C-alpha cells in the first residue's frame, strides 16, 4: 500500500533514528565535530563535473526562472478581468525594451528547460540511454541553437528598426 501520511509514532521513530544518526556521527572517532567546510554554492562550480553537472544546474536555474515568470504572468493575466483600460496599461509596461529583452531570455529558458527535460525523460524511461547521454546533451545544445537563434533574431527585429 502506498501511503502519503505517517502515523505520529512512525514520525517519532523516524525522528529518533535521525537523532541516532547524529549521535553516531559524534561517536565515530570521538573527534571534535568539524563541520563540513564545503557545502557552499562554491561546491557546484569548483567541482569539475562534466556536461551532466552543468546541464542540471542550468535546468534548475531555468526552472526557477520560468516559474517566477509564470507566477507574475498569472497575476497579470487575471488583470484582464478588470477590463481593457487596466490590462492595456499593464501591457504598456511589457512593451518596455527591458521587458522585451527579458522575453527573449524567457524563451531561451523555456526552450532549454523543455529540451533538457525531454533528455531527462528519455534517460529516465530508457536507462540504457545513459550510454549515449553525452550525445543526448549535444543534441540538446544543437537543437537549442537551431531553434533559438532564428527565434531570437526574429524577436529582436524591432531593435534593428
Amino acid at each position: 500500500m502506498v501511503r502519503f501520511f505517517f502515523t505520529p509514532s512512525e514520525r517519532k521513530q523516524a525522528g529518533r533514528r535521525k537523532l541516532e544518526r547524529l549521535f553516531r556521527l559524534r561517536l565515530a572517532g570521538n573527534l571534535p565535530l568539524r563541520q563540513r567546510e564545503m557545502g557552499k554554492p562554491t561546491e557546484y562550480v569548483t567541482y569539475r563535473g562534466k556536461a551532466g553537472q552543468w546541464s542540471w544546474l542550468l535546468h534548475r536555474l531555468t526552472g526557477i526562472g520560468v516559474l517566477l515568470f509564470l507566477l507574475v504572468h498569472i497575476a497579470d493575466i487575471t488583470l484582464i478581468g478588470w477590463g481593457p483600460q487596466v490590462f492595456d496599461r499593464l501591457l504598456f509596461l511589457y512593451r518596455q525594451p527591458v521587458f522585451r529583452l527579458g522575453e527573449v531570455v524567457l524563451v531561451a529558458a523555456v526552450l532549454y528547460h523543455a529540451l533538457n527535460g525531454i533528455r531527462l525523460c528519455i534517460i529516465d524511461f530508457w536507462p540504457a540511454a545513459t550510454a549515449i547521454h553525452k550525445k543526448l546533451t549535444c543534441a540538446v545544445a544543437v537543437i537549442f541553437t537551431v531553434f533559438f537563434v532564428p527565434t531570437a533574431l526574429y524577436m529582436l527585429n524591432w531593435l534593428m528598426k
Partner: protein
Amino acid sequence: MNVTLKIRRFNPERDREPWWGTYTVEAESTDRLLDALNHVKWYQDGTLTFRRSCAHGVCGSDAMLINGSNALACKVLLKDLGQHVTVEPLRGFRVIKDLLVDLEPFFAKYRQVKPYLITASAPPANERLQSPAERERYDDTTKCILCGACTTACPSFWANPAYIGPAAIVNAHRFIFDSRDEGAEERLSILNTADGVWRCRTIFNCVEACPRGINVTRAIGEVKQALLYRKL
C-alpha cells in the same frame, strides 16, 4: 619531471582552519599520484595523512578530489594531471585529518540497503543455477569497491547528506537484479523514499567519478524503473 602538489591540510589537534600545503616532488610521468603522495609522506612531511592500501585501484581506500574531480590517487598517473596538482579530501564527508574523511555515515547507508543475498528457499546441495545472461544482468554493479567517489561527486548529496547516495543504490541494484535474490521488495521499499532513489537528479557526476567504470546512473535508473513498474 617535477610536480607541484597543492594539498588541503587539516590536523584536528593543531589547526583551527584547513590550509594549503605545497610540495614539490621529483617523479616519473608514469608514476601514480599515490606514489607522489607517498613520496611527500615518506621524505618531506611525515604528518601528511591519507588512506591507501592496494595501490592499484581495487581496494577503494584512496578516493579523493584531484584537480577538482574525484578519482583514486592510485589510478591516475601524473602525466594526466599536469605539473600542478591540487588534492583535497572528498566533499560532503566530515574531514578528520588531511585527506582522510569520516566514512561511517557512508557505510551506514550501505548497510541500510540490506546488501546481502536474501532468499526464502533452502539452498540446493550444489550451486543455484544462473544462466550467463542472468549473471550478466547485474554484472556492472558487482564491481563496486565502496570507494565513495560517486556519492561525494553528487551535487544532490552535497546539498542533502541524508540522500542515500549512488554507492548504496548501486549495491542495492546488485541484489535487486540478481535472479537468485528474493529481497527485492524490501530493498525497493527502502529506496522508495524522499532520501532514496528519488533524490537522484540524473547528474552523471557519479559515472564520471567511478574508478570501476560502473554506469551508476543507469543502475539508479533501473531501480527507478523497477519501482515504477512495481507500483503501476
